[in-house]
């Protein structure tokens, strides 16, 4: 199963764009890349998921290079409420025969005023 590596922490200021990069060198052909946000004592909240190239939704963008060995979550114009832990996951599709998510330690993003 692919393991992910992220920076442990990041600081940013309100209004800035934040990019969090995740490394997943052993990603398998059928694996999707998913990002979650988690506030203290709450369940992780789904942000975005992608397989290749670029995916954008109302809250974030996900950039995946052609080799898929890394991915970058981009949060535009962060606010104080974006202070949270962000997890990058590689999830196995049913085709590969395994179904569990492996969470790393995540990236603690602190947004400063």
């Amino acid at each position, binding site marked *: 199963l692919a393991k992910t590596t992220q920076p442990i922490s990041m600081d940013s200021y309100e209004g800035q764009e934040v990019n969090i990069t995740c490394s997943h060198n052993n990603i398998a052909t059928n694996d*999707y890349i998913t990002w979650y946000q988690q506030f203290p004592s709450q369940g992780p909240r789904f942000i975005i998921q992608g397989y290749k190239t670029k995916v954008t939704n109302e809250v974030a963008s996900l950039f995946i290079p052609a080799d898929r060995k890394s991915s970058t979550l981009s949060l535009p114009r962060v606010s104080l409420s974006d202070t949270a832990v962000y997890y990058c996951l590689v999830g196995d599709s*049913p085709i590969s025969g395994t179904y569990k998510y492996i969470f790393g330690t995540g990236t603690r993003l602190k947004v400063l005023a």
Partner: protein
Amino acid sequence: DAGVTQSPTHLIKTRGQQVTLRCSPKSGHDTVSWYQQALGQGPQFIFQYYEEEERQRGNFPDRFSGHQFPNYSSELNVNALLLGDSALYLCASSSTGVGETQYFGPGTRLLVL
């Protein structure tokens, strides 16, 4: 549309006791996964249920068991509680298919004294 719900929200038990946690999946989802999250750590996969069967299991002892009902809801049972079982227990639901995005509930905070 109700999301994933879990009960109870908090629970206090003593060592050696048994506990049952409950989860109702998001509407339309047929798969339930359980995770344990210790303080300051990422969630750790316990097991996943699909079609009332355990489909995949993480590195947890047999004291951790589960069940899925015909309506797709699920229970997590932990026997012979240890102090180290104190954690936030998260339930995630998904719909079987490629990508399998998991949506998490708010969690149950278990404290073992």
